[in-house]
C-alpha cells in the first residue's frame, strides 16, 4: 500500500467515525427532543444507518460483489424468518399455558370463570 492510498484510507476511517459519533449523539438526544412516541422505531432506524456505515466502510464490504450478495442473501433469510415468526405469533393460541405471558393470572381467571 503506497503512502497516498494509506492517507486516503485513514481519512475515510476518520470521516466514518465522525458520522458514527453524530448518529450516536442523535441516539442519546432523540427520546428527549423529538418523536418521543416513536422512540423504538427511530432508535432502530439510527442503528440501521450506523450498521450500514460499519459494514460498508469498517468491514470493507463496499465493492465486494460475491461476499456482498452472500451477506444480502443471509440477511434476507433472517428477514423472512422474522416475518414468518411475527405473523405466526400474531395468532398466538397458547397464551394460557405459555411461559412468556402471565399464565398464572390468566389461568386462574380461566379456572374461576369455569367455577362460576
Amino acid at each position, binding site marked *: *500500500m503506497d*503512502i497516498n492510498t*494509506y492517507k486516503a*484510507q*485513514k481519512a475515510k*476511517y*476518520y470521516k466514518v*467515525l465522525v458520522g*458514527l*459519533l453524530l448518529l*450516536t449523539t442523535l*441516539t*442519546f438526544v*432523540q*427520546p*428527549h427532543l423529538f418523536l*418521543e412516541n416513536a*422512540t*423504538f422505531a427511530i*432508535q*432502530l432506524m*439510527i*442503528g440501521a444507518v*450506523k*450498521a450500514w456505515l*460499519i*459494514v460498508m466502510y*469498517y*468491514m470493507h464490504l463496499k465493492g465486494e460483489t*460475491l*461476499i456482498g450478495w*452472500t*451477506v444480502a442473501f*443471509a*440477511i434476507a433469510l*433472517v428477514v423472512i*424468518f*422474522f416475518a414468518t*415468526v*411475527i405473523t405466526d*405469533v400474531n395468532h398466538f393460541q397458547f397464551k394460557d399455558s405459555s411461559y*412468556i*405471558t*402471565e399464565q*398464572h393470572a390468566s389461568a386462574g381467571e380461566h379456572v374461576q370463570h369455569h367455577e362460576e
Partner: protein
Amino acid sequence: MSHEEHGHEYVPEIATARDGKKYEVQGWQGDFYGGKLGFWLFMLTEVMMFGAMFLTLTYYFSLHHDAFIEASSEFSVLLGGTNTVVLLISALTMGLGLLKMRAGDVKGAKLMIYATMILAVVFLAIKGVEWTEDYHEGIFLGLPALQAGNPDSRSFGEILFFGMYFTMTGLHGFHIIIGIGLMIWLLKRINAGKVTTEHHILHFNIALYWDLVHLIWVFVFPYFYMIGAGHGH
C-alpha cells in the same frame, strides 16, 4: 528480509501419478479471498444467533410494552452510552491497526491492537460496574425480584426484560473476552513473524470480528437503554 526468515516458506505437496510422473498439488495458503469469505460465513452464523435473540426480545416487547419501557428507564444511559463510545473508538483503533499493517508499519499496528485491547477492558470494567449496581439493587438472575411468585417479584414483563438483558449483554461480553483473547493471539503471531504486511489475513479477520462485536452493540444499546430513556425514573 526473506520469506524464510518470516516462517512463510511454502513447501509444495507433490503427488505421483501411476505413470510415475510427479505433479505439484494446488496449495491454498495464499488464498486471501477464500479466508475472508470463510470468515464472513462464520459471522453470518453469529447474525443468525443474535438475530433470533433480537426477534425474541421484539416479541416480548410487543407483549409487555409498558413493563419493558418501565424496566429500561432504570438503566444508566451514561454508563451504557460511555460503553457505546468506547466500542466506537475501539473499532477505529482496530481499523487503523489493520491499515498500518497493510502499509508496512508493523510497530504502529501493534500499538493500535494494544489500544483496542485496553478499550475492550474498559468496556468490560464499565459493564462490571453496571452489573454490580444492578445486583445491589436486587436485580440479577436468580435473585427474588426476578423470580415469579414471591412478594418481591417484579412484574412478569420486567422479569422477561431483565432476563433478556443479562443473557444478551452477557453473551456480548463473552464475545468481547474472546476478542481480547484473539488480539493476544494476533500479537503473538505478529511477534513470531507469522502475520506480516504480505500475509495479514488473520489480522484482517480479527478486525472483522471486532467490527461484528461493535455492530451487535449498536442494536443492543438502544434496545435495552434507550426505549425507556425519555420516561425518567
